[in-house]
């Protein structure tokens, strides 16, 4: 077991940095206290360990003390900075260029309904009470996770998405992180709050412009879906192969609310991600869709848990990944159903395909169930590519390369085709194909291509109820 981060390596990440970040942003005192409290928890918590992380090179796989998190963000010229990453017509988007945030205007109709897509600083100026309540009732607890505490102490950016009661936002709200150059550090504390009966799609993208040695994106995203609300979150990560990605998500669904998290992970040297679904309301629904494709020496460490705390709740998480080269992944998942959560259904699946003998993947699913009147099941598999499939397709004239491409891209489909956000679903296909072909593609490239050519193959989507197929525990 190798340590994720040791105290020695933290270098500049100390109490004075936490204070300085707060001061330079003229934050209210309560927020400064939250930072310091988080820092305290961060210091107390033991080093996180994982068998996947590189030997000797420690922790994050690089020297975290080299990550540049300065108290005052440097100014960038965002037009040239984001050139090629945007069509230029985007609205309703928050851009994060290294530590500098730029906010694209919300459409008037959304703004007039009280919808917010704000940077943390703006949000504090506009509605400090709201931000304070979000911080004070944090779902991702700093005492429970070293990186939640880390982000709580040192965040240098953040986003607040707020959708008032009954408002349905009919176009995605977006944000994009773009790292440029080595030693850039983005530490992000984000809240998404959908009030009763509201609806919103939040789409985030993470990219690097070039080599990003000693760069890091560390993020905590909290999602609150209040009664009858619906939140679809999607995250696309294509950071440079030298960067570190750390993410924590806590997603709460109250009565009859629905939340989905779709994630596509393709980049970074190490990506360590935790998602906790908190099904705290009767009849609520939470779904996770995780797609990853690794090569070379990438290390992915994912954990997704479903906490059923209320009756009639339905949760599922499905992960599918393909591993090439010497890459490795580990997937942990736990279904916890408390005694009060009668009639809940839960499903956890992880399937990985190894393209080379040097690639490795592990799945550790678990169940903790305190009520007999529930349906919970998990399935996991790690397998090499099927030789009989290869032969069959080659017997139809496809070359070995084409055959592998088809089988691999098809392997993602049972999960990918369920991703509820069209932009993410189609974009993920496009980006995965790109990675297979050795080309870095972004969502914007697909939009540009779509504008050029009209020919598309019809899409096949899975709609069958997963609970109809899996019923190991009832």
């Amino acid at each position, binding site marked *: 077991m190798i340590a994720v981060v040791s105290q020695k390596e933290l270098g500049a990440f100390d109490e004075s940095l936490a204070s300085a970040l707060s001061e330079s942003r003229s934050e209210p005192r309560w927020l400064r206290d939250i930072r310091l409290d988080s820092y305290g928890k961060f210091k107390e918590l033991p080093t996180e360990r994982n068998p996947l992380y590189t030997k000797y090179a420690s922790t994050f796989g690089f020297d975290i003390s080299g990550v540049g998190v300065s108290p005052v963000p440097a100014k960038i010229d965002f037009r040239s900075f984001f050139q090629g990453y945007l069509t230029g017509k985007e609205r309703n988007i928050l851009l994060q260029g290294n530590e500098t945030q730029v906010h694209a205007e919300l459409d008037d109709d959304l703004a007039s309904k009280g919808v917010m897509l704000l940077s943390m600083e703006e949000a504090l100026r506009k509605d400090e009470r709201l931000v304070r309540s979000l911080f004070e009732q944090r779902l991702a607890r700093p005492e429970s996770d070293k990186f939640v505490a880390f982000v709580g102490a040192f965040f240098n950016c953040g986003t607040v998405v707020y959708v008032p009661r009954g408002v349905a936002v009919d176009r995605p709200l977006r944000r994009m992180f773009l790292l440029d150059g080595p030693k850039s550090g983005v530490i992000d504390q984000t809240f998404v709050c959908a009030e009763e009966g509201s609806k919103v799609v939040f789409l985030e993208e993470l990219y690097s412009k070039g080599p990003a040695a000693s760069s890091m994106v560390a993020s905590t995203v909290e999602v609150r879906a209040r009664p009858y609300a619906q939140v679809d979150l999607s995250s696309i990560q294509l950071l440079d192969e030298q960067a570190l990605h750390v993410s924590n998500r806590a997603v709460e669904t109250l009565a009859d609310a629905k939340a989905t998290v779709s994630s596509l992970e393709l980049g970074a040297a190490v990506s360590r991600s935790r998602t906790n679904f908190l099904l705290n309301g009767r009849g609520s629904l939470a779904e996770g869709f995780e797609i990853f494709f690794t090569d070379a020496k990438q290390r992915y460490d994912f954990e997704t848990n479903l906490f059923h705390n209320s009756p009639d709740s339905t949760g599922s998480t499905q992960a599918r990944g393909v591993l090439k080269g010497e890459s490795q992944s580990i997937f942990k998942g736990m279904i916890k159903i408390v005694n009060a959560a009668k009639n809940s259904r839960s499903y956890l699946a992880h399937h990985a395909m190894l393209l080379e003998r040097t690639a490795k993947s592990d799945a550790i699913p678990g169940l903790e169930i305190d009520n007999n009147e529930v349906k919970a099941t998990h399935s996991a598999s790690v397998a090499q590519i099927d030789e009989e499939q290869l*032969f069959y397709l*080659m017997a*139809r004239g496809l070359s070995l390369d*084409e*055959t592998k491409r088809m089988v691999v891209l*098809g*392997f993602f489909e049972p999960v*990918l085709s369920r991703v509820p956000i069209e932009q993410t679903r189609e974009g993920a296909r496009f980006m995965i194909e790109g990675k297979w072909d050795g080309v870095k593609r972004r969502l914007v490239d697909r939009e540009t291509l779509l504008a050029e050519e009209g020919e598309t*193959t*019809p899409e096949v989507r899975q709609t069958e109820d997963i609970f109809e197929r899996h019923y190991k525990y009832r």
Partner: protein
Amino acid sequence: MKLEIKDLHASVEGKEILKGVDLSIGQGEAHALMGPNGSGKSTLAYTLMGHPKYQVTSGDVLIGGESIIKLTPDKRVKKGLFLAFQYPVSVQGVSMFSFLRAAYNNSRPPGTEPPTIFEFREEVAAKLKMLSMDETFLNRYLNEGFSGGEKKRAEILQMALMRPKFAVLDETDSGLDIDALRIVAEGINKVSGPDTGSLLITHYQRILKYVKPQFVHVMHQGRIIQSGGEELSRLLEEKGYSWITGYKEEEAAQQPA
């Protein structure tokens, strides 16, 4: 042009299954290959298509005089060979439509412009109609959750689109009820034009009521031990394989070792 199999020996995991198969199929000819279980019929089919588990130890397979035994399966397709699988493999996430399109484009003569997606769709629609298949079929994953009859029809659909010079049909009749058998058999007849040479592998005579072979061969213990016309299949149906295999074994026993 001919598909020629010359003294073909092949083994699986070190065990010799084919022990000298000789067979010649001309374009436009329909051959049936019959024989009891374990006689090596399916091994012959896989070996012809180039399954990596089946090792040719000696002998040769030629198409138009050129040896194909060193070629990968996709290259054999380009020489005009097709295999309808006894057990078609399912592939999750690959839609029938995109699969058929890839198969179609990969079996066209080199240098020809592939059809547009609209032209291809029309072409497939016509073939589907011919095989009494619904268009929704195209939106399903390749062979995933297909019934036995659907799988076999899908194989014939692929053959119809790929237009091979030589088609090996490995027990295409197995697992079909009588209606499905008729549809599949009619499909084979429609698809096999005057340029197609076919080798229909079967246990039973029943499909031969619909697909009329000019030549019937009987395989036993890795060799073709008897060849004849259509009447041979009827004799086999009446008298059983032991009629030939027993006779041959007797004959072999009489020969000095």
